[in-house]
């Protein structure tokens, strides 16, 4: 070991330590921001480590510097631009896009090594068989991650919708076909020769598309989280390809942590990973026969004016924000309404279901963006006992997470899912565009209850009108 080896070793060790601390800290609210920065510092350190090592051992040519600077400048600047510009509501698709690019990077590294095996780029891996296995895994996972993430992003953006046949059973046959294609090309690669390489790229790419395409709605974040875990696996495989311990350990950490996060998300939605991946939407098949469907018999709808009058007379108001609010980007208008209410002495809290928003935890981000004080956000377990003492609940574009069926009806597909007990409150207003079912595709018993009134309309529009009505009643947000 010469000096630069020792230096490189110490830097790598420190980088791994910081990455581990970073991942650990990201799971706690208090330390999350510092943890994110720690991880970023770790990445910079790791980069310095590679540069120091290469410089000490074989030198870095001018050519190499030029291409390094070119690649990192373009990627880095685009990254900065995207991160600054993107709207908070567009977070799910942004994460998917970043993730897909990580997968693409691993794919390209493996491809480059496979296509130009004569160069010295393969590190210390003398064993050819292991090298080719690493390349195969890296190409396979990298390609799935890339196409899957791009499809996820396009679907979340609304650029792609789900073709009808994708909801049917045919898709399983098609996907198995893609998987077999990928498998055959893998075997041919392992037997020697490069002929299967492009087949593998295409086969696994199509598999990524085929698996992600039928998935929609609240399941999409779970898939993104899973793809994120895959991109970690792809990074670890790339680590085997170029012979980097640091890459292997970091990739493995992200892969495993992503898997756990995926599991936690599934639990929050009362879904199993298998049903997310292979089941399609809960209501994917028309659920006419299930007990959950049926006609509404006792819907009360009311005007914004009535809603404002009731709110004015309330002492304790709980807001239940949901997917509809996020889609309508109404969080700022909501904040103005709650400011008005608070201004006249009404106590306002927000009930946050674990999967509210467009992805788990997304609602907290959106409300934080609209400057809602953190301590007003109450999680489900905290807020549920408070509903009986609540005068008015405003449900904004949330549906399944407030369905009493989850508690009362053991034959309901929702049964067992943790929900907000909003029906315990004196009055419930549900702001919703129409009577369409929520993501699960089943009827919401809440809407039929005597203390529930529906206010039909787009969340942003209704909240805007509500604000005007409140001002007419002499309630304004100046307080």
């Amino acid at each position: 070991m010469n000096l630069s080896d020792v230096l490189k070793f110490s830097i790598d060790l420190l980088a791994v330590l910081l990455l581990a601390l970073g991942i650990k800290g990201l799971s706690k609210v208090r330390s999350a921001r510092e943890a994110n920065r720690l991880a970023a510092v770790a990445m910079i350190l790791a980069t310095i480590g590679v540069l120091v090592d290469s410089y000490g051992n074989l030198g870095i040519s001018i050519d190499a510097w030029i291409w390094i600077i070119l690649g990192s400048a373009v990627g880095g600047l685009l990254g900065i631009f995207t991160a600054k510009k993107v709207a908070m509501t567009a977070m799910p698709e942004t994460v998917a896009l970043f993730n897909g690019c990580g997968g693409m990077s691993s794919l390209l590294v493996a491809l480059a090594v496979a296509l130009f095996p004569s160069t010295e780029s393969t590190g210390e891996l003398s064993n050819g068989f292991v090298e080719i296995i690493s390349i195969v895994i890296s190409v396979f996972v990298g390609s799935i991650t890339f196409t899957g993430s791009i499809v996820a992003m396009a679907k979340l953006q609304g650029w792609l919708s789900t073709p009808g046949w994708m909801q049917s059973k045919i898709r399983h046959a098609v996907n198995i076909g893609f998987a077999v294609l990928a498998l055959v090309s893998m075997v041919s690669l392992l037997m020697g020769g490069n002929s299967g390489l492009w087949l593998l790229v295409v086969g696994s790419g199509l598999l990524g598309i085929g698996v992600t395409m039928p998935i929609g709605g609240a399941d999409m974040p779970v898939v993104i989280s899973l793809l994120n875990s895959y991109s970690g696996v792809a990074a670890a495989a790339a680590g085997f390809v170029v012979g980097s311990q640091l890459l292997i350990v970091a990739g493995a950490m992200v892969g495993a942590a992503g898997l756990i996060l995926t599991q936690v998300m599934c639990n929050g939605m009362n879904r199993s990973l298998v049903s997310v991946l292979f089941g399609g939407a809960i209501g994917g098949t028309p659920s006419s026969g299930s007990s959950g469907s049926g006609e509404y018999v006792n819907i009360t709808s009311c005007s914004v004016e009535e809603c404002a009058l009731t709110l004015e007379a309330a002492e304790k108001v709980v807001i239940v924000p949901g997917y509809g609010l996020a889609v309508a980007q109404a969080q700022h208008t909501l904040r103005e309404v709650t400011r008005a209410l608070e201004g006249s002495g009404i106590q306002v809290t927000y009930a946050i279901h674990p999967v509210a928003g467009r992805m788990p935890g997304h609602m907290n981000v959106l409300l934080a963006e609209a400057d809602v004080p953190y301590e007003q956000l109450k999680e489900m377990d905290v807020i549920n006992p408070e509903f009986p003492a609540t005068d008015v609940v405003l449900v904004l574009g949330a549906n399944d997470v407030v369905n009493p069926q989850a508690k009362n009806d053991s034959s309901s597909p929702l049964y067992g899912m943790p929900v907000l007990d909003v029906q315990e409150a004196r009055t419930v207003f549900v702001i919703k565009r129409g009577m369409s079912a929520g993501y699960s595709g089943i009827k919401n018993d809440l809407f039929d209850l005597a203390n529930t009134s529906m206010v039909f309309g787009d969340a942003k529009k209704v909240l805007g009108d509500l604000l005007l009505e409140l001002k007419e009643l002499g309630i304004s947000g100046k307080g």
Partner: protein
Amino acid sequence: MSFLSEAFWVLLLGSLLGLELIGKVPPTLHTPLMSGANAISGITMLAALTLIIKAGSNIPLLVMGSISLGFALFNVVGGFLVTDRMLAMFSRKPSRK
């Protein structure tokens, strides 16, 4: 074989560490955590970097390495910044009305 056996130990221990690190995550942090872990997965930039440095004068390899580095850095830089943007919103918690 020494690198290889070491590499498998590293893979095993890294996976266990990852499983251990994420125990209980409050739902509040699911989105930022996903985004942060996502940024870390862009660590393949190191592989791209290694590729370029070892490419010598092989132009196709240099170009592929550079593109790969670009994709990875987009992931890393964008991922960390956007995570920081989200977390910054949480941290201004003391109520200022």
